[in-house]
């Protein structure tokens, strides 16, 4: 069994940024394990531009954004194994993986960073009646086929779901000569970015049908068409609104789910709202020494935020590795009374002192669907912690309220908040220490009072 200080599962934007950050924080023996034949993850198939505005102050395409990090990983000589599938992570951080050249192998890591990304919700999650003909793809699969493999999945396309990948694929398929007939969205609003609605649909005259869904799939061998219907406010199809559209391809862009099979098997506690691991201010999961960042933790809308989060995960993992080294059992020699010396082991400090264990829970309430992190240790936290969250529905003229126990600490006015845009607030250590008794911090969306 080989030993590494840090093993990173996944070589996409999160894994790459985490590795670079850990190296810059003094960690020597780092290994990135990647399932695909190349680094970069899903960015490789996201050939459109608009990445990196926050990080590099320029608009890059996905592969270009990935390449900046890949070059840095090479420059820093961070070891990567490609074509490598991780099979298991034990709570003691033993990683079992397999690849064609090494076969199955085990690695003992002092710390692990989970950076496996997310997966698309498949057709099976939707319960659309009808046969299972060829021609139904998740939007990301179609994106890979067109942009990497060089195949067109079809000619006449309907897209269900207006997530960003669906919108991007509506434009991509159109540019490649397909006819995109409609993008149907179950909700009365799109979860995609405004920019994508305008530049991918409006620019090409593709209709966005809000409060609509696919109720029937036609065709046995190959998709021949779908039936679209309007839905009521509870998402139920309204009888009489059905409309048949002929198409040979249906793309599904109906949500992303963090890919946490490995985390679950390891016994890591997942947050039912994010479907990613529950983490503290150091992005450490409930399993000591195992950290998480990127889309495996919660689905992000901008890769820039993934890189930012992963950089923190790398830094905290590095800190953990250094601390656990410093507190490793040290053999000391104690002089006995009669000149005999005894060798004893200094107390193992891996169980952390009480003040480091005290944690404050963050509670998402009225309108807030989740927070990351889910808990904060006032003793361990840096000067400032960014708490990211999402809202459940669209709010106009509202405010974000942060409560320490019952006491309102922050109230931030907002013109609009939407589920598709990740939000954040900052918590300062100084403020938290003014309230040594609090056990919870609540974040809620409040209607803004009209000023008299």
């Amino acid at each position, binding site marked *: 069994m080989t030993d590494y200080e840090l093993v990173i599962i996944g070589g996409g934007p999160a894994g790459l940024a985490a590795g670079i950050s850990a190296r810059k924080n003094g960690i020597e023996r780092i290994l990135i394990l990647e399932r695909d*034949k190349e680094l970069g993850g899903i960015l*490789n198939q996201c*050939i*459109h*531009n608009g990445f990196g505005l926050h990080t590099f102050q320029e*608009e890059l*395409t*996905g*592969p*270009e954004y990935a*390449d900046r990090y890949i070059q840095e990983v090479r420059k820093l000589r961070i070891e990567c194994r490609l074509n490598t599938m991780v099979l298991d992570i034990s709570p003691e951080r033993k990683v079992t993986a397999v690849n064609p050249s090494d076969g199955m192998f085990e690695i003992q890591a002092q710390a692990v960073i989970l950076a496996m990304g997310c997966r698309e919700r498949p057709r099976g999650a939707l319960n659309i009646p009808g046969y299972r003909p060829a021609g139904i793809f998740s939007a990301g699969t179609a994106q890979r086929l*067109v*942009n*990497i*493999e*060089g195949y067109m999945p079809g000619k006449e396309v309907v897209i269900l779901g207006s997530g960003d990948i669906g919108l991007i694929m509506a434009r991509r398929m159109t*540019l*490649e000569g397909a006819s995109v007939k409609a993008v149907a969205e179950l909700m009365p609003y799109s979860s995609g*970015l*405004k*920019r994508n*609605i*305008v*530049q991918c649909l*409006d*620019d090409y005259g593709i209709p966005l049908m809000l409060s609509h869904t696919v109720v029937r799939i036609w065709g046995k061998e190959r998709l021949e068409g779908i039936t679209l219907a309007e839905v009521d406010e509870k998402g139920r199809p309204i009888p009489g609104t059905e409309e048949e559209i002929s198409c040979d391809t249906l793309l599904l862009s109906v949500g992303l789910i963090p890919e946490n099979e490995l985390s679950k098997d390891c016994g890591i506690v997942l947050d039912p709202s994010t479907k990613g691991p529950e983490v503290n201010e150091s992005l450490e999961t409930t399993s000591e020494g195992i950290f998480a960042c990127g889309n495996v933790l919660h689905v992000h809308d901008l890769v820039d935020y993934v890189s930012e989060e992963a950089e923190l995960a790398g830094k905290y993992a590095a800190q953990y590795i250094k601390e656990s080294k410093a507190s490793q059992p040290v053999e000391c020699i104690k002089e006995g009374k009669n000149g005999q010396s005894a060798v004893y082991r200094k107390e193992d400090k891996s169980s952390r002192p009480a003040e480091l264990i005290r944690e404050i829970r963050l509670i998402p309430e009225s309108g807030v669907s989740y927070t990351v992190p889910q808990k904060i240790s006032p003793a361990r936290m840096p000067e400032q912690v960014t708490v990211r969250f999402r809202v459940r529905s669209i709010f106009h003229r509202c405010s974000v309220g942060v409560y320490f126990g019952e006491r309102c600490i922050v109230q931030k006015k907002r*013109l*609009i*908040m*939407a589920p*598709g*845009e990740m939000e954040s607030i900052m918590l300062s250590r100084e403020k938290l220490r003014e309230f040594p008794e609090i056990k919870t911090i609540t974040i809620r969306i409040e209607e803004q009072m009209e000023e008299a």
Partner: protein
Amino acid sequence: MELHKFICINCPLGCSLQVEVEGADIISISGNTCKRGEVYARNEVTNPVRVVTSTIKVIGGEQGVVSVKTKDPVPKDKIAACMEEIKKITVKAPVHIKDVAAKNIAGTKTEVVVTKEVREI
């Protein structure tokens, strides 16, 4: 007088912008909540541009196609013409980021550049 309508893309508010145009002059911009909306509306009327991204064929590479983009944004009404020319481009592996795959695409004076590394097999 002509009336142009857009959705502003600067934030999730998505204001419905209306621009009144008389010949080459903008008479009024309305519907915006902030300054950024006004600037966006002005650009969309006077000179709407987009970066075009697509893929081109690669011969002898690790993958059959490689992603490309127009180095600068091109006028919106030139997108279709750019795509027609981009579809005809073929390159030989290896290719590198920033390699020029075509010059003056569809008469826009803009280059088409490669956006991904593809090694030779």
